[in-house]
C-alpha cells in the first residue's frame, strides 16, 4: 500500500495558494475539517473559493476564515447562522453562489466520477434555472447541471489508514465522501489513524485512491449547533 501520511495539518495545506478552489466537508458543524481550517488560518492564504454545504458559524468552521477575510466566494446550499457572513455579503465583499443541496452533492460527485454534466429536476421554474439548458424527460422538465471540482478537498473522517482509506461516523459523513473524490489533492484528517489492514475492506466508505494526504488530528472540538435532548 501507498503511504499518504503527512506530519501535521500545516504540512498538509502548505501548497494551498491564494485564490485556490477548495471543497470543505461537513453539514452545519458536523463532520467539518477543523484541523485543516485551523492550519489555513495560521497560513493566512487569501482569495479562497470555498465549496461547502454551509459556511460555519461566526466563531467556528468556515466562519473563522470569513472573519479573517480569507474567503472570496462561497458555493453553498444554505448559509444561515452567520452574522459576519451576512455583513460581508450585503457589503459586496463576499460572492455567494447558492445551489440546491442535492444538486450540489450530485455536481461534486459528478466531478469525482468523470461525468461532466447531468440532468436534474431540482430548480426548474426557479431562479436557479436562469441561463441553464432545460429538457423534458418523461413529461418532466429538467436542468442540465455541470460537474464541480476543486484544487484541494479538505475532508474529515472518523478512522483512516495510512493508505488513505476512510470510515466516517454517523451523519458526519455527509459531503465528505464526494468531496474526497472531486479534489485534485484531497487532504483527509482523521480522529484515529491506523495501519493498512486494520479497517475492514468491506466497510470502507472512501477508498484510499481518492486521498493524497492524511493526518491524525488532535483534540477535536466537534461543536454542536443545536444541542437538543429528550424532554423528561
Amino acid at each position, binding site marked *: 500500500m501507498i503511504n499518504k501520511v503527512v506530519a501535521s495539518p500545516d504540512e498538509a495545506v502548505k501548497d494551498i495558494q491564494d485564490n485556490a478552489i477548495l471543497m470543505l466537508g461537513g*453539514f*452545519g458543524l458536523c463532520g467539518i475539517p477543523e484541523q485543516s481550517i485551523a492550519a489555513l488560518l495560521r497560513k493566512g492564504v487569501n482569495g479562497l473559493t470555498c465549496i461547502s454545504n454551509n459556511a460555519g458559524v461566526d466563531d467556528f468552521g468556515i466562519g473563522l476564515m470569513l472573519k479573517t477575510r480569507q474567503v472570496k466566494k462561497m458555493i453553498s*446550499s444554505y448559509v444561515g447562522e452567520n452574522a459576519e457572513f451576512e455583513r460581508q455579503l450585503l457589503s459586496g465583499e463576499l460572492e455567494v453562489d447558492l445551489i440546491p*443541496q442535492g444538486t450540489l452533492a450530485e455536481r461534486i460527485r459528478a466531478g469525482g466520477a468523470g461525468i461532466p454534466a447531468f440532468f436534474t*429536476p*431540482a430548480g426548474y421554474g*426557479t431562479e436557479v434555472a436562469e441561463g441553464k439548458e432545460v429538457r423534458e424527460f418523461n413529461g418532466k422538465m429538467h436542468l442540465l447541471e455541470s460537474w464541480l471540482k476543486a484544487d484541494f478537498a479538505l475532508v474529515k473522517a*472518523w478512522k483512516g489508514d495510512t493508505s488513505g482509506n476512510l470510515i466516517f461516523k454517523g451523519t458526519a459523513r455527509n459531503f465528505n465522501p464526494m468531496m474526497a473524490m472531486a479534489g485534485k489533492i484531497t487532504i483527509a484528517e482523521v480522529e484515529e489513524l491506523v495501519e493498512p489492514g486494520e479497517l475492514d475492506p468491506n466497510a470502507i466508505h472512501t477508498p484510499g485512491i481518492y486521498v493524497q494526504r492524511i493526518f491524525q488530528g488532535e483534540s477535536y472540538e466537534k461543536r454542536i449547533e443545536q444541542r437538543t*435532548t*429528550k424532554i423528561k
Partner: protein
Amino acid sequence: MGLDKIGIAKRIAQEVKDGTYINLGIGIPTLVANFIPENINVVLQSENGLLGIGPFPEEEEVDADLINAGKQTVTTTAGSSLFSSSESFEMIRGGHVDLTILGAMEVSENGDIANWKIPGKMVKGMGGAMDLVASADNIIVAMQHCSRSGQSKLLEACSLPITGLNCVKKVVTDMAVLDVLPDGGFKLLERAPGVSVEEIQNATAGKLIVEGEIPEMQIG
C-alpha cells in the same frame, strides 16, 4: 379560533400511512413525528444522511456526529442506516421517499410553492428544499393560512420567488385541510374546529372549491 402548531402537526399525522418513508422539513413538520400513532410503522429520512431518525438523545447520549437536517442532535433506531449527501438525494430525487412534509411561505392554486427567499431580506439559501419539491410525488405543506399581517398565503400565483412548480398535493393550515387539484384550485376538505367555511373563503386568495358539507377536523 383555529389550530395551533401542535394541532396542525396532529392533523398531518393522520395523513401518514403505515409502511412509508417520510421526509419532514424544519418547523411544524418536525413536530408531526410526535403524533404518528404507535401502530403505524414509518421511517423518517433526514437529508443530511440518516434513514430512521430516533428520538432526541438523553443528555449523556448526545453525539456531535449525529444530527438531523435542522442540526439538532438525534439518535438512531434499530434498523437505521447512514449514508452520504449524494446518496441521500439519490433517495429523494429517485422518488423513493413516499411523503414529504414542508413548511411554506406561499402556495399557489396550481401547487407552486415559495419557501426559500424573501426579496430584500438576507438570503440564507434553499438547502434541500428545491430538490425535495422537484422530486417528491406526495408533498403536504404545513403552514399558517395567513401571514402575520393577515395576508392569505394560499394564492392564485405565488408572489415570492418560487421553490418549485406544480408540486404541492395538500395543504394543512390552522384553518383548514385542502387538496390542491391537478387542474388547479384548493378543494376544501375539512374546517378547523370553530372555523366557518366563510372565514376560510375570506382567508383564501386563490380559487377555493367548496362542495357539499365541509366536516370539522377530528383531532385527538
